[in-house]
Each structure stands twice: as C-alpha cells, then as structure tokens.
C-alpha cells in the first residue's frame, strides 16, 4: 500500500503522458494539480487554524472549547462556514458598492498568491521557484493593506475608517523592519529565491536561526504586527472600534476577510520557516531517504517537516495572543520605529560584519572558514562557529545599542515614568504635600 502511495505521482505522470504532450503535462497540467492541492490544503489549514485557535485559547483559559459538532468539535469549522454562507450579505447605505464588493477578494488573493512561491518541500512540492521569491512575497503581501484601506473607506462607517487608518499605518511601519530583517539572512543565502535559501541551509546542514536569532525575532514580531494579530490588534480593538475595518461586513464577505487574516498568518509562518528554520530541510532526512533511493519518501518527509515547523510558529501566534494584553497606540509606533527598525539595521550591520570577518579570516594563518560560495555561503565548521558566536553576540549588541538609543526617549522612558506618580487634579505651584513628608506604603 505504501509502495503504491509513494509511486502514485509516477503512475499519474505516465497516465497523463498518454493523452498530452510532455510539455503540456510538465508546464500546464502538473502546475494546475499543484495549485489545486496547495489552495485546497491552505484553505483547509486556514479553517482548522480557526478551530485550533479556539481550542488553544480554551485550554489556556482552562476551558474545553468547541465540543458539540463532531468528536471533540472537529466539524466546527464546517458548521461555521455553512452558517456564514447562509447569512445575509448586508451592504450599508451610501457605501461605495463596487469597492465594497472587491475589497475582500483583494485581501484573500493577496494572501493566497504568496503560496505560489513558498517551497513546501523539494522537487514537486513547490509550485514555482521565482528567483526574486522574497521580493515577490513582500510585494504581494503588501497588497493586503490596500484591501483593508478600501474596505474601511468604502464602508461609510467611522469605525471601519478608523480601523483601516490604524491598520494601514501599522502595516506600513512594520513592513519596513520586516523587509530589513530579511536582509541578514539573505547575506548568508546569497540568493532571493526561496528554494535557493532552503538549499543554502540544507547544503550547509544548518538553520539560519543560529546565525540570525535577532532576525527571526524581528521578523516574527513584525509579522504578527502585519497580520494585525494580538498583541498588535489595535485595528480590531473591540472596545474602541467594534471590529475595525470589517465592521460593516457580514456573511461570506466577512468570512473572506477572516480567511485572509489566517492565510496571511500561514504565509508569515511559512516564510519565517523558509528563511530561518531551514524550510523543508531537516537533519538526517536526506541521508535516510534520498540517498537510499526513496525519492517520494524524501519529498513527503520534507513536506511534513516544513508543515511541523510552520505549525510551531503558528502556535506561537496563538500563544502570544492569549498571553499578552494589547499595546497602546503610541507604544505600538514606538516599538515599530524606535526598537524594531534600529534592531533590524543593527542586524544588517552585524551580519555584514560577520560575513566580512569570515571572508577576512578565510586563508588567514591557514584557517579556512568559507568552503565555497556556489550554494549560498557554505561555511566550514570553524566558520559556522564564528557565525553562530556573532549571531548570539548580536542579541546583546542589539539590546545594548537599543537601550542606548532609547535612553533619553521621552515617551518610552519607563524609568522616568516609574519614578513619578502624577497627581493630575492638584493645582500647580506649591505642592499640597511636601515630598519629604509623604510616606509611601510599599
């Protein structure tokens, strides 16, 4: 049975070749099959991400979560989807109808198109390998902001407009540090192709997480902020803005926005996995499968490794959401511009220094750090040690420089804020109580 399952792609390939030319099969039919599979699996994954979110939030709060539809509530996403399908498709009066109709589709398409370049595994598990993959991901996922702005504007509602304003400001400011955080990893990969980045890590038997720990942290924080997820969910702050940009949406259009949010989460985790956690590369998998001639098993196991890593990062989303309270707006902007952006810049400088040091040490006193540059920056064991040491030192360097930068920062000066308890209603001038007479209970 397993033999048959593993040989299935070959059998299908032979069957297709009887009816179509080789070019049609390779460039039209197989891509369509891949696209169909990826869209289906992603849609299913998105649906079950909502289920997981509800379950995990329930477990964290010592509840059970959905339990009534199917065993352990496993059919809950289907019930929810059906409910949303039969709900009224409400359009507010004076709304800009055409834009109102189009906005959810832009959001979903922008989130799903990125899946085209994500390498889920080696060989046939990747739809297309664009040599500017990272740029493509950043460019297309930014289109999602457009959908939010259009939705907020066309709804003709103050809450939706304010939510759209907030989310666009937030996404634009965090996109900067997200883009800059990637550069460090690219220096070691020497390519923009996502498959190339994975093979750079696979040929070196290392995950870029070790070279770029701060890069992953910045990328994930910016990714969470980009997706408007808690603790950065100000655009959807219930207590202030009802539901943010999708306040006026209902039924299927609302569910499209919901799908877009979760699909964007899946995209961020997938890209983070590719860049920092080695993508589909997992130690010993190649040696145990491909080297022994089991090609399909190699692809499948790599695919599972990729999904497991992405799933772990997705769990991080839920975990943070149910742990941390929401940021205040000025704190959000401070974190974006005063902490994330300088940290990303420091990361670039330190990564560049690391690469320069590695190149300088190569051949210095008989030391070899760089093996070759054919497949990314292939380092020897010494080189890896140096790169990892610099990566870990970068954590402390960044923390030190960031606290230096923000030392006198007025808004974020927590030290000063803690020293002073402002009594607002008292008149200016002579203090009502002399500070030295005041006794503070601990």
């Amino acid at each position: 049975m397993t033999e048959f399952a593993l040989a299935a792609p070959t059998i299908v390939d032979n069957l297709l070749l009887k009816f179509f030319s080789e070019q049609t099969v390779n460039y039209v039919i197989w891509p369509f099959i891949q696209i169909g599979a990826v869209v289906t699996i992603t849609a299913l994954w998105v649906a079950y991400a909502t289920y997981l979110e509800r379950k995990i939030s329930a477990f964290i709060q010592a509840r059970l979560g959905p339990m009534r539809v199917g065993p352990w509530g496993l059919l809950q996403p289907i019930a929810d989807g059906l409910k949303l399908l039969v709900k009224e498709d409400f359009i507010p009066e004076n709304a800009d109808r055409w834009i109102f109709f189009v906005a959810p589709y832009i959001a979903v398409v922008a989130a799903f198109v990125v899946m085209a370049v994500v390498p889920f595994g080696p060989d046939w598990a990747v739809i297309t390998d664009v040599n500017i993959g990272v740029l493509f991901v950043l460019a297309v996922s930014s289109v999602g902001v457009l959908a939010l702005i259009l939705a907020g504007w066309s709804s003709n509602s103050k809450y939706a407009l304010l939510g759209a304003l907030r989310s666009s400001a937030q996404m634009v400011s965090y996109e900067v540090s997200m883009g800059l955080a990637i550069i460090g990893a690219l220096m070691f990969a020497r390519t923009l192709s996502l498959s190339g980045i994975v093979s750079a890590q696979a040929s070196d038997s290392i995950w870029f997480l070790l070279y770029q720990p701060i890069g992953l942290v910045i990328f994930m924080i910016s990714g969470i902020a980009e997706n408007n997820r808690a603790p950065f969910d100000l655009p959807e702050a219930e207590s202030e803005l009802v539901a943010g940009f999708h306040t006026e949406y209902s039924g299927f259009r609302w569910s499209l926005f919901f799908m877009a949010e979760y699909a964007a989460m899946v995209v961020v985790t997938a890209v983070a996995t590719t860049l920092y956690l080695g993508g589909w590369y997992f130690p010993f998998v190649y040696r145990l499968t491909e080297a022994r001639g089991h090609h399909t098993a190699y692809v499948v196991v790599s695919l599972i490794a990729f999904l497991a890593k992405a799933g772990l990062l997705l769990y991080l989303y839920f975990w943070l959401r149910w742990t941390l309270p929401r940021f205040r707006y000025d704190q959000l902007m401070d974190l974006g511009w005063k902490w994330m952006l300088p940290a990303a810049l420091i990361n670039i400088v330190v990564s560049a220094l690391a690469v320069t040091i590695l190149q300088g040490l190569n051949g210095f006193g008989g030391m070899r750090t760089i093996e070759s540059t054919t497949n990314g920056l292939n380092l020897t064991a010494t080189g890896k040690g140096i790169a990892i040491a610099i990566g870990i030192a970068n954590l402390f360097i960044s923390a030190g420089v960031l606290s230096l930068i923000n030392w006198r920062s007025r808004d974020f000066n927590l030290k000063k804020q803690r020293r002073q308890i402002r009594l607002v209603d008292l008149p200016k001038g002579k203090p009502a109580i002399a500070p030295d007479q005041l006794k503070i209970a601990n």
Partner: protein
Amino acid sequence: MPIVPVPNPTFAQKLKRFFMVDLLKGLAVTLGFNIGALTDRDAVAGKGIYTEQYPRVRPDVAPRFHGAPRLNMDPDTHETLCIACNLCALACPEDCIDVIPMDVEVVVAGKPRRKKVLDEFIFDTSRCMFCALCQEACPTYCLELTQDFELATYSRAGFVWNREMLEQGRETVKYEA
C-alpha cells in the same frame, strides 16, 4: 505637580527587565495551562479543565444546596405525606406557600368523623429565596428542597408550582452523557 519618590530599581530588577523575565513568566503560565488542559485530569489542584459540558454532564452541587421544592409521598402507598398542618406556610418568610386543605368524611371506630386532608399546594418559586425554613418546619418530612436547579420557565405563571408539579417534578429535557 508633586513628585512622589519611588525607589530606584535594584540591579537584580534591572537584570530582570533586561531579560524580560516577566514576559517569559507569563508565557510559561499560559503554556502550563495549555499542557495541563491536555494532560492534567485534576482541575481543582492542578491545571486541568474547570468547565463542565453542562447539558450533558450535570454539575455536582454542594450538599447543602437548596433547589426545586418537592412534596414527598409514602413510597409504599403513594399517598402524600402532607397532613395539611400549614406549618410550612407559617414558617415561610416570603409568604410564598399556600396550603389549601379540605375536609373529608371518615369513619373512625364506627363513628363518622371529619378529617382535614391536603387538597392543593401552591408554591411560588419566583418569590422563594430557598431558605428551607419550610423544610425545617415540616413535621412529616414531606416538603423538601431538592438539588434540582433548573427552574427557568417561559412565563411568570410558570414559576407557580401546583401540587401535581410538586409531587411529580417538572419535566426537563435530559441529555445523554
């Protein structure tokens, strides 16, 4: 604006803030509950699940819980234990009990006698505060406040229980466990 001096953070506190110990502690708490929900069976002592699946699983109420009233019957003869003595109505601080007796003709030792028996019993659960003073007053252990807590109805009139409801209990939907 008076400035209240707050002591400078100690070195240990600064280190804690630098390494974000509080954040990690918070994450550890939520992760602990998440793992506990999957592994720990003991909700009270450990980190298991506190909630019950209510309609399926009936919650355990406290032993001294007072709920829906009931008029007990003799288990052998299935005749009411109530002797229509009206003590419960007198004991009730909310005045929500009405005992309506009637006289019946009985023959005791060959002579016709009149006996007071229970005709109708009205218990207004909307006014009841479940103090169980009626239960204390009852000399025959007839009136009792049970552990049943599902008292909601669709109308005000539904809160007034008559003798039949008090004796048979109200019909509620029972779910299979």
